[in-house]
């Protein structure tokens, strides 16, 4: 059965897009990630215009993280104050990102920008995760104890003004670094169609030294609100949110995520991280390859978007 996507303006097979949502949902359920970094490239690969893939992606991420965020909130794993600072930064970053999308589309460099961003971030995050997980697997095999994180270490972060007390995170730090992290993540969300958890979680752990227990909940809190704002802004400024496409992906994603959680429970943490790293690097290489190999068609056509 085919369905016509009103914003992407294309007729697509319902079964194909449902199973795509399902597959991405499975992986995100298994690895505990948002899956935006898989979904957006997959949509582009399926012929959905890049801007629509990115815009619709934020709607799908909102749907897939909202229930997780509520569950974390009930378990009191959300630092609301920290979350609000991250959201405030995120909204600013998203607004800048959505504006940049508009300009880049007009000058015809949006696809390139998205591809380069993906290669850069997926390469860096996937590479680091790969090194870390391989080390963890080796240590687990050799039987050495995993060294605990040293607390009380001070870094340059602690010298900044506007200090705030984040009770649940047990931190007394400047509001600027979390706001900056939030802004950066919001920007990535708008231009790449990702939740940005893969940047936010390591940044919160290693830069802000937020306790691991509240990191996931707080980042989900930020993702829900920033994705909501991003969806709204993309719909208003770029008109690239396809509700029909999003519903297909959400329905598939919800089903897939349930199965993924079950599959993920059977694997060890470092094994999961290794597999996730491999997946991230594969997506990175796939996009990178497209950039450097001579394309079969060097011309492309597009509508006029207020200038060339």
């Amino acid at each position, binding site marked *: *059965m*085919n*369905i*016509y996507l*009103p*914003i992407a*303006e*294309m*007729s697509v097979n319902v079964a194909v897009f449902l199973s795509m949502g399902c597959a991405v949902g499975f992986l995100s359920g298994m690895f505990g990630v948002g899956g935006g970094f898989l979904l957006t490239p997959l949509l582009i690969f399926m012929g959905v215009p890049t801007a629509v893939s990115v815009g619709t992606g934020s*709607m*799908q991420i*909102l*749907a*897939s*993280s*909202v*229930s997780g965020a*509520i569950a974390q909130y009930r378990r009191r794993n959300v630092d609301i104050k920290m979350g609000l600072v991250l959201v405030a930064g995120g909204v600013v970053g998203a607004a800048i990102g959505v504006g940049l999308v508009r300009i880049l589309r007009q000058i*015809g*460099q949006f696809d*390139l920008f998205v591809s*380069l961003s993906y290669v850069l971030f997926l390469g860096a995050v996937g590479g680091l995760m790969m090194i870390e997980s391989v080390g963890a697997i080796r240590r687990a095999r050799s039987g050495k104890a995993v060294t605990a994180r040293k607390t009380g270490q001070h870094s340059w972060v602690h010298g900044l003004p506007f200090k705030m007390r984040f009770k649940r995170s047990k931190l007394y730090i400047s509001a600027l670094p979390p706001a900056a992290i939030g802004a950066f993540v919001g920007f990535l969300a708008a231009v790449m169609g990702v939740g940005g958890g893969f940047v936010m979680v390591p940044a919160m752990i290693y830069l802000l030294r937020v306790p691991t227990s509240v990191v996931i909940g707080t980042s989900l809190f930020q993702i*829900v609100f920033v*994705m*909501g704002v991003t*969806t*709204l*802004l*993309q*719909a*208003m*400024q770029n*008109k690239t*949110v396809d*509700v*029909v496409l*999003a*519903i297909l992906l*959400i*329905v598939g*994603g*919800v*089903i897939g995520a*349930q199965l993924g959680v079950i599959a993920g429970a059977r694997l060890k943490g470092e094994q999961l991280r290794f597999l996730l790293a491999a997946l991230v690097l594969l997506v990175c290489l796939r996009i990178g390859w497209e*950039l*450097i*190999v*001579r*394309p079969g*068609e*060097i*011309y*492309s*056509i*597009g*509508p*006029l*978007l207020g*200038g*060339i």
Partner: protein
Amino acid sequence: MAPIAAGRTDRRLTVAACAAVLLVLPHAVLGQGFQRTLPPVQMGPRQPPVAQPPQDPVETVEADVSTRSVEVTTGFTGHEILVFGAIDNSQQPESRGQDQSGSSYYDVVVVVEGTPYPVVVRRKSDVAGVWINTSSVLFASVPSYYAIASTRPIDQIAGPGVLERNSIGFAHIKMTPGGGIKWKLSDYELSGFRAAVIRLKQAEHLYVVEAKDGVTFTGRSLFRSTIALPANVPVGPLVARTYLFRNGEVLSAHIARVTLERKGIERVLHDFAFRYPFTYGMIAVILAALAGLLGTAFFRREVA
């Protein structure tokens, strides 16, 4: 011979019969209008129907489209439209088929064209190992859709001059480069961009040459042609131009229009998204949040 029976018989007989009536009826009753509709007749004894008239009447083509309005709904998977028509005063021999030279007496070309719209064409080049859009051309008006069907390949029907004047064939699609070209492109470069539009549109099945025998004759004056609109045909009015050719010259042309409109929920959503972007965005946000909550709630119950 009664005038009523004349309708079924040959035209010449009708004329002769009417002429006979004219002689007996008072002039005032018939009026001038009636006389003017009659072709010039030779008065006198009835002529056999096989005789050639002194001057060939001018052939004209009339055509129409089976569907005046096509609705693009959420489940739209394409639509086949039938362009049909007739040649008035056809002199095509009854048992036509293909004659010795393989050509027919008349040639008919049907062109279905979508609404012209501005198109930006971009060209990538290798910049330090990465393929980047480096130059672009704006064509102010390019048909969104272009399908052509004909009795024979068009280059056998007429010369490039005639085809160019009527914009028949991919090579003669009207594409005017618009403003905004940052530097002067040579004709050669421009033709590369032009060719790219045609190639990419063909790849999307939006520029189509209907297969051989795109237009077929039924009898001596009726013809038909089916044009398959693909699922991705851009909405907007379509113009179906029908040309009648004889010996490489256009004898007559006819234009019919088809409206291609978004209908149903699909149209509502598209219009809504563009007219009320804020409300649409809010609905998208609420919908996503609800869908996420409902989905997990549903599965939790299933699992528990």
